[in-house]
């Protein structure tokens, strides 16, 4: 794992400044600022309804904040669309698993290559020549990811039939297929048993190690957060209440209060 000193010196990949987002009367995010540096695992934690998922949705362009700005790779991105986020190198998974349920594991992960494939509609219709070659090349990459995640056995299974833990793994595979620079994981271990959690932890660390991917991670399990992350930002009621290395955050009085529900 990188030391804090390394990361503190690292380049900022994404920064969020004074971002506020509300839905009608509900203030989901209120004036939150933080940054994510290249190569780090950045955890976002906080009680339910704190605004963590909303923050990921802002980062990948699903929601547009009413105030504040987002810089990605040094460029200001106002009103970034999901398509632009994806082509800029942001991939994500969802809290409640959003897979293409009728499609096989292979096809789901192949769908993650959509942006990397660009043979035109004409050849697609014929499906010979360039389109065929392109399929083969990308299929090879996808097989590597399948090996990496150890899901060879379910390659041809429609994902709707898989148990929840495996679905989360396929979803991670689909995000990895995009070869992202920034990977957003929304509670990747929720609803998993201990063994599945350990596997997922290992995959996340391996992803960072092997592909150098920067990771932003929402997680409830404090043990996991402390093990995996380089820095932690804590949200509560849409506000940022702490930001720093795990040990410091863990000892922070406001954080403990928020988690013990003192103010709730």
């Amino acid at each position: 794992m990188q030391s804090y000193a390394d990361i503190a010196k690292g380049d900022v990949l994404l920064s969020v400044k004074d971002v506020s987002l509300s839905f009608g009367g509900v203030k989901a995010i209120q004036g939150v600022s933080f940054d994510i540096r290249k190569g780090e695992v950045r955890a976002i934690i906080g009680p339910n309804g704190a605004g963590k998922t909303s923050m990921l949705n802002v980062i990948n362009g699903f929601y547009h904040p009413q105030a504040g700005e987002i810089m990605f790779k040094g460029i200001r991105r106002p009103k970034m669309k999901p398509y632009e986020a994806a082509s800029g190198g942001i991939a994500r998974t969802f809290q409640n698993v959003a897979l293409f349920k009728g499609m096989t594991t292979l096809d789901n992960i192949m769908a993650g290559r959509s942006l990397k494939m660009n043979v035109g509609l004409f050849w697609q219709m014929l499906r010979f020549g360039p389109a065929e070659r392109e399929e083969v090349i990308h299929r090879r990459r996808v097989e590597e990811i399948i090996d990496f995640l150890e899901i060879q056995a379910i390659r041809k299974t429609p994902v709707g039939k898989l148990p929840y833990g495996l679905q989360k793994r396929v979803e991670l595979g689909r995000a990895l297929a995009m070869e992202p620079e920034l990977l957003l994981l929304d509670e990747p271990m929720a609803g998993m048993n201990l063994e599945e959690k350990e596997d997922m932890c290992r995959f996340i660390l391996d992803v960072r190690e092997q592909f150098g991917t920067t990771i932003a991670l929402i997680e409830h399990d404090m043990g996991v957060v402390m093990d995996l992350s380089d820095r932690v930002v804590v949200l509560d009621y849409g506000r940022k209440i702490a930001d720093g290395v795990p040990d410091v955050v863990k000892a922070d009085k406001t954080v403990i209060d928020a988690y013990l529900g003192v103010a709730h």
Partner: protein
Amino acid sequence: MSDATLPAAPAFKMTPGRWTLLGFVAFALLIVALVSTGTIRRGDFLYNVFADPFVSMVDLPDLLVQTLWEGLVAGVLYALIALGFVLIFKASGVFNFAQGIMVVFAALSLVGIYEILTLRLGFPPGFVAAILSLFGAIGVMFVLAVVVERVVLRPLVNQHEIIMLMATVGLTYFLIGFGEYVFGGNPKVMITSQLGLPTGSSTFNILGGRVSIQHLDVAAAVIATIMIAALAFFFQYTRIGRALRAVADSHKAALSVGISLNQIWVIVWFTAGIVALVTGIMWGARSDVSFALEIIALKALPVLIIGGFTSIPGAIIGGLIIGVGEKIGEFYWGPLFGGGIESWLAYIIALGVLMFRPQGLFGEKIIERI
């Protein structure tokens, strides 16, 4: 594994569908009994409704074959219209009220462009002009898809389904008005032979009788089959087909991997437009090309009720069931009602199927999504 742990055979349960089936069988036996004991006989109302049609089917099998064939051909065309609906519904959740009009509009464009080419631009009438017109009509359907995406879908995305439905109702009236303005309101004749489609018919002596088959109907069945197979292949094995299936499954997941919904919508509307064009050619060749053809869209609804709004196999099987059921009903029971039953029979057949399978043939979520 010991025998004790083997699951017991599932107990036979009487579902509502099985009760209905049992009822039918019991009723059929009753009729047979009544007829053979002479309680009801030729000329009685009950005999005419419940016995006579089946007696004629057995006595004149050639007529039965003829009727079945005609039903299958009509069914193929119903299936194509339903297919257009399903494509658009799956990819964008829009119930496209304009699908029927798109059939007419596509056929009118084809014939209209042919008229312009041959009558005004001095092209020699014939195959070449017809093929040029075909490409022209495909171009028109592409432009329509782009315009619909820009003007209707994009501004209304995430609106309630009813609003989208109303937008397609508006599109229907726009296409009628625009079509009449550009191509005139008079019925036109489909350029069947110019396109190289066969027009004659052949008669076969089988089963002690004669069955006559229109060559055009054979061509329609073959072309429809090829088109459906090509579409299935396209969906299953290409990147864009995969993207289409992805969008149909989950909009947000598709967006997150960078699939552009706008591009996908253009592609599905264009595909539905091509399907409409093929349907329009086949249908127009059997009658003429006018806005009266629009009513065939009404046949698609019972097909969708049977097959489900999201199932392509459902559209195909549903279309064939309605087509065959309708022709059989019309031929054998129609005279009892003094004819004219084809306008509502399809709906009765759909209700009949729903009695056995309330969820439709293939549907898991046909009711939930509309």
